[in-house]
């Protein structure tokens, strides 16, 4: 008897179904608890599952540089992006310089994953500061590659390990990655002709965007989560959630692949209790 899908498995399968054959997916190596699961483990599991099902030609760029590394040789995910162990893991190619063999600017990356401390109603993301920029309440790490993720990649999946009112705000305190202010037309006026956030994935729901209106909307709510709970944890009005579907459950076959082929030793996703 197959144990029912966990939340993380449900999200990984939903993501896997959204990835297409021959795409190139870029993920960082995030460490520590929920951030690691959302930022790295779920994206890696989704890409590997997609490769085993409908997207055999998908390229996984782990830590943004190791192409399709052989994860079966690992006892645990590496804890840092430029770990010597990751350097020696069998892979198809390694990006070890800038500039190197592929170009982010030319559009070689189909999709990426990023996480942030704040997301707002138009899909802007923030990893720079909380509060006033000049005298912040919390100074965070900086924009890193977010400006590039949100404009030069084909699309972005924003992975949010926490979904509370402080994370989902009407307006982020600093725009380090641009969403859809003014919709697609608004992005064009800013000189941005491609890319942008596709989904924002949280422990409570999956958001996507009305790209014409330039507004975030709830695409599906995870099993067992009440719509009122999603609204209560969000710092802006989400409208009528009564017709929003439940995030689709994995099939038995998908779950078997995920547990026995993608992650046989349980180094990516916590096992069902």
């Amino acid at each position: 008897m197959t144990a029912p899908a966990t939340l993380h498995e449900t999200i990984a399968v939903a993501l896997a179904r959204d990835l297409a054959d021959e795409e190139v997916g870029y993920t960082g190596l995030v460490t520590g608890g929920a951030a690691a699961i959302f930022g790295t483990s779920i994206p890696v599991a989704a890409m590997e599952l997609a490769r085993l099902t409908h997207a055999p030609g998908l390229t996984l760029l782990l830590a943004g540089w190791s192409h399709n590394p052989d994860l079966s040789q690992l006892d645990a995910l590496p804890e840092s992006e430029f770990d010597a162990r990751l350097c020696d893991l069998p892979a198809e190619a390694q990006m070890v310089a800038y500039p190197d063999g592929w170009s982010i600017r030319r559009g070689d990356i189909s999709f990426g994953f990023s996480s942030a401390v704040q997301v707002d109603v138009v899909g802007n993301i923030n990893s720079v500061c909380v509060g006033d920029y000049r005298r912040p309440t919390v100074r965070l790490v900086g924009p890193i590659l977010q400006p590039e993720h949100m404009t030069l990649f084909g699309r972005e999946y924003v992975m949010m390990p926490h979904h509370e009112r402080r994370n989902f705000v009407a307006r982020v305190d600093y725009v380090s990655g641009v969403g859809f202010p003014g919709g697609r037309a608004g992005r064009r006026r800013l000189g941005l002709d491609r890319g942008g956030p596709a989904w924002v994935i949280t422990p409570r729901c999956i958001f996507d965007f009305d790209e014409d209106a330039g507004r975030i909307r709830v695409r599906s709510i995870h099993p067992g989560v009440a719509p009122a709970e999603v609204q209560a944890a969000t710092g802006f009005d989400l409208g009528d959630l009564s017709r929003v579907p439940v995030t689709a459950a994995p099939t038995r076959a998908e779950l078997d692949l995920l547990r026995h082929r993608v992650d046989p030793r349980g180094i990516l996703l916590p096992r069902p209790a």
Partner: protein
Amino acid sequence: MPPLRSKILSLAEAGGRVPDGCRLAIGGFAVYQHPMAFVRELVRQGRRDLTVVGSVNGNDVDLLAGAGCLRRVESSYVGLEKYGLAPNFRRRVERGELEMVDYPELLSFDRFRASQDRLTFWPCDYLGGTDILTYNKDIREFTCPVTGRRLHAVPPADPEITVIHAIAADERGNVVVPPRRLLPQSLDLTMARAARSVIVTVEQIVSREYIRQHARWVELPSYCVSHVVEAPWGAHPCPVLGRYGIDDAHFREYAAAGASPEAFAAYLARYVTGPADHAAYLGLIGPARLESLREAEAQ
């Protein structure tokens, strides 16, 4: 024939070449391969008002911030990766004691490419809508003369001095970077080529004969290097690819010490200003700990 001039300096002499107020680039990336022995020496010498121009910074900037050596930082990231936010950097910025100028990551690399090629700016077409433009007034808008598109001109990094840490060099400053390398080692080379004055600390000084036998590994020829300093374990607690791994326990101790100015002052007294020099620092860390960090396959 007059003898060839050696470029070897002691760590203290090399640190003395960095004046107060200097615009300094520090090699390494996040928590990897920073020239930490050199950074500790700058703290020991009480350097002030430095500007660090970087790309992806970590404990290098955080240590200087905690010791009060910095006026300004230009970077895309200052953090300790799995060890969390950079505690001293964070505190100084939150108190308004340190000016931070934020750049996107690729552009922070491109700024050194611009300096390497002596360009006055690097063009960019993807900054619209970001608060990078709101707060970073060094980036200016212009119209592309070819397409008429609105673009942004990003200023070059233009460090006065670059300091990097490498595996080996000879006394003339031919610097060896083996082919088993990753982005941090490659970016160090761009950073070094961006400055007129380059200080390289190395794990080991090697002979001219060694250099002649490994010429294809020499990525910085001698005329690109001003000074060479022998500093074994010179990146500790950061790792050096091909030599040693990260000192996880020390990083945890560092991150915990950053929680308060008082605890960090104690850290500085114990590990930075207390030891008279780098050798004394290594003695404090201890040979057993250092040996345990050595990469298994390191030659």
